[in-house]
C-alpha cells in the first residue's frame, strides 16, 4: 500500500443513522460499502457517529464500542479490505472513557483513530457532558498519500486543519452530523456556513476538502445532507442532494495540490515568528 497513487475515487456516504441502534446501522454500513465497492471507490467516508446516531445523550455509554475488541468493527474492517473506510462511533477506552471517534479501516484492520478534539457544548449541543476530548492529531496515509481526518467542530477551529496541512496533508476529510437550519435561500443556512468553511479552508490550506454530512431527523433536529467535495483553491467539484440519502462519488487527483501550491505558495511562506500584538 506504499505505492503512491495520486488519483483517487472518493465516496461520501450521506446516510441517515438510526439513533442508538448499532445493529441496524451496521447493516446499512455493510450495504453502502458494497455499493461503494461496486463504484470502485478507494476512500469511503461515513458521517460523524454513523454507527450510533448523534443525539444520544444518556444512551451514549450504552452504544460505546472498544474498537480493537469489537465484532462490529471487525465486520466492517473485513467487509472490503481494499477499500479505506472512515466510520463514526462512540469509542470506549480501556479506562471506560468515551470519545466521539472516527476510525479509518483499511486492509482489514484499524489504520487510524481520530478522537474529536473540540466538543461543542452550547445551544443544542451537549457533547462535553458525554464525551472526553481527543488530545492528539495525526496524519493518516492512503496509498502513500498523507491526509487528515477531522470531526465536525474540529473544523470550526482553524488550527487542526492547518496543523495537518503543515505536516503534509493534501486532503482533509471532514465528517459531520451538523443540525440543519433553513432560511430564505435554496441552500440551507447551515450549509452556507459549512461551504464557506470548506471552501475557505481549501483555499488557505491549498488542499482538497471532503465534507461528509448526514440526513434524517433525531427527535426535533434534522441533518441537511449537502455533502461535498472542494478542489484545492476552493472550487466546488461535487455536491450531494439536500435531505436525501446519497452516495456521492468523485474522482480527485492529489497532484492538483502540488500544481496549486506551485502557483500559490502561501503554505511555504507561512511564518510562525511574527511578534505581537502585546
Amino acid at each position, binding site marked *: 500500500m506504499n505505492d503512491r497513487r495520486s488519483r483517487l475515487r472518493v465516496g461520501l456516504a450521506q446516510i441517515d443513522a438510526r439513533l*442508538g441502534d448499532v445493529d441496524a446501522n451496521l447493516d446499512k454500513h455493510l450495504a453502502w460499502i458494497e455499493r461503494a465497492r461496486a463504484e470502485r471507490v478507494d476512500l469511503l467516508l461515513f458521517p460523524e457517529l454513523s454507527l450510533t446516531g448523534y*443525539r444520544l*445523550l444518556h444512551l451514549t455509554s450504552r452504544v460505546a464500542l472498544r474498537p480493537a475488541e469489537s465484532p462490529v468493527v471487525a465486520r466492517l474492517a473485513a467487509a472490503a479490505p481494499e477499500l479505506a473506510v472512515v466510520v463514526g462511533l462512540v469509542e470506549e477506552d480501556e479506562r471506560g472513557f468515551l470519545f466521539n471517534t472516527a476510525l479509518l479501516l483499511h486492509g482489514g484492520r484499524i489504520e487510524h483513530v481520530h478522537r474529536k478534539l473540540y466538543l461543542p457544548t452550547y445551544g443544542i449541543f451537549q457533547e462535553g457532558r458525554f464525551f472526553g476530548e481527543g488530545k492528539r492529531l495525526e496524519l493518516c496515509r492512503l496509498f502513500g498519500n498523507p491526509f487528515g481526518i477531522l470531526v465536525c467542530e474540529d473544523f470550526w477551529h482553524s488550527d487542526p486543519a492547518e496543523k495537518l496541512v503543515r505536516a503534509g496533508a493534501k486532503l482533509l476529510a471532514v465528517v459531520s452530523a451538523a443540525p440543519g437550519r433553513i432560511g430564505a*435561500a*435554496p441552500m*440551507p443556512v447551515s450549509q452556507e456556513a459549512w461551504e464557506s468553511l470548506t471552501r475557505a479552508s481549501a483555499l488557505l490550506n491549498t488542499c482538497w476538502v471532503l465534507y461528509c454530512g448526514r440526513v*434524517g431527523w*433525531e427527535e426535533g433536529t*434534522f441533518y441537511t445532507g449537502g455533502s461535498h467535495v472542494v478542489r484545492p483553491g476552493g472550487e466546488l467539484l461535487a455536491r450531494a442532494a439536500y435531505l436525501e440519502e446519497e452516495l456521492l462519488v468523485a474522482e480527485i487527483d492529489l497532484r492538483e495540490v502540488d500544481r496549486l501550491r506551485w502557483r500559490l505558495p502561501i503554505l511555504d511562506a507561512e511564518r510562525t515568528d511574527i511578534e505581537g500584538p502585546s
Partner: protein
Amino acid sequence: MIHRESVAARLALHPELATAALQDFIRDAVETVGARGVVVGLSGGVDSALAAALAARALGPERVHAFFLPFRETDPRSRQDARAVAAAFGLALAEIDITAQIDAYFERVEPAADATRRGNKMARERMSILFDQSKKLGCLVLGTSNKTEILLGYSTLFGDNASSLNPLGDLYKQQVWGLARHLGVPEAVVTKAASADLFPGQTDEADLGVDYPTADEVLFLLFDQGLLPDEVVARGYAAEVVDRIVHLEKTNRFKRRMMLIARLSGSAVNLDREIPRD
C-alpha cells in the same frame, strides 16, 4: 444593526426546502414508533390546515384522519373552511359535536364559568377526543401550535398545545401563512382573521393586543436574536407592545416546559436522565 424594515425579510423561508424538511419530520416520527398515520383536528384555520397539508404530503392522504369538532356556538364558517381544507388535500373529514359533554359539565356543575374557562374546557375536550381517536386508529396526534402562539402562551395547556408531534412549533405565524399558500391551502382560510373560535366574534389579534406580523418580528428579535426589550423599542416598535409581548412570553413559560417534576433522587426523569425518545 437589524432595522425594522429588514426583520420581516429575515423570517422568509424557502418553501420547497422547508416543506420537504417538515414532511420528513412527520414521516420519521410516525415510522419511528410504527404508527399507522396521524389524526388532526381541523378548526377551519390556517395552522391546522398547514399541518394537515404537510401530513397528507408526507404520508399520503389515506393515512391522515381529520376531525372537525364543533360546539353549538362554533362559527358556521369554520365548518365550511374545514371542509374546504379537507377537500383540498383529499382527506376524509369526520365530525364529532362536543356540545353535549361541554353542556353536561357547565350546566350541572359550573354554571357561572366565564368564557375563558369554557373555551379551555372545549380545547381540552377536543384534544381528549383526538387522543382517543388516535388510540382507536393506531395513529399519532398531529400538533398545530405555531411558534408565535407557543411563545405568547396563546393556547390551552393540555388542550390545543398537547400533541404527539408538532411540525409547526418552530414557525412564526407569517411563516405559517407563507407555507400554507405554497401548499395550496384555500386563500380564504389563509387570509381570514385568526380566531380560537372559543366564543362568537373572538380574534387572536384582539385577544393578544397586537397584530401577528408585529408579534412575530418582536419575538424574533427578543427570542431568536437575543435583543433586550429597549433594543427592540429602539428599532421602531411601540414600547407598550414590546412590554406586553415580554410579559406574555415570561408568564407563559410554564406552558412549554411540560412535566415539572420535583427532583429528589439525583436520577429524575428528564432532569438527570435525558433519554431521547427516538
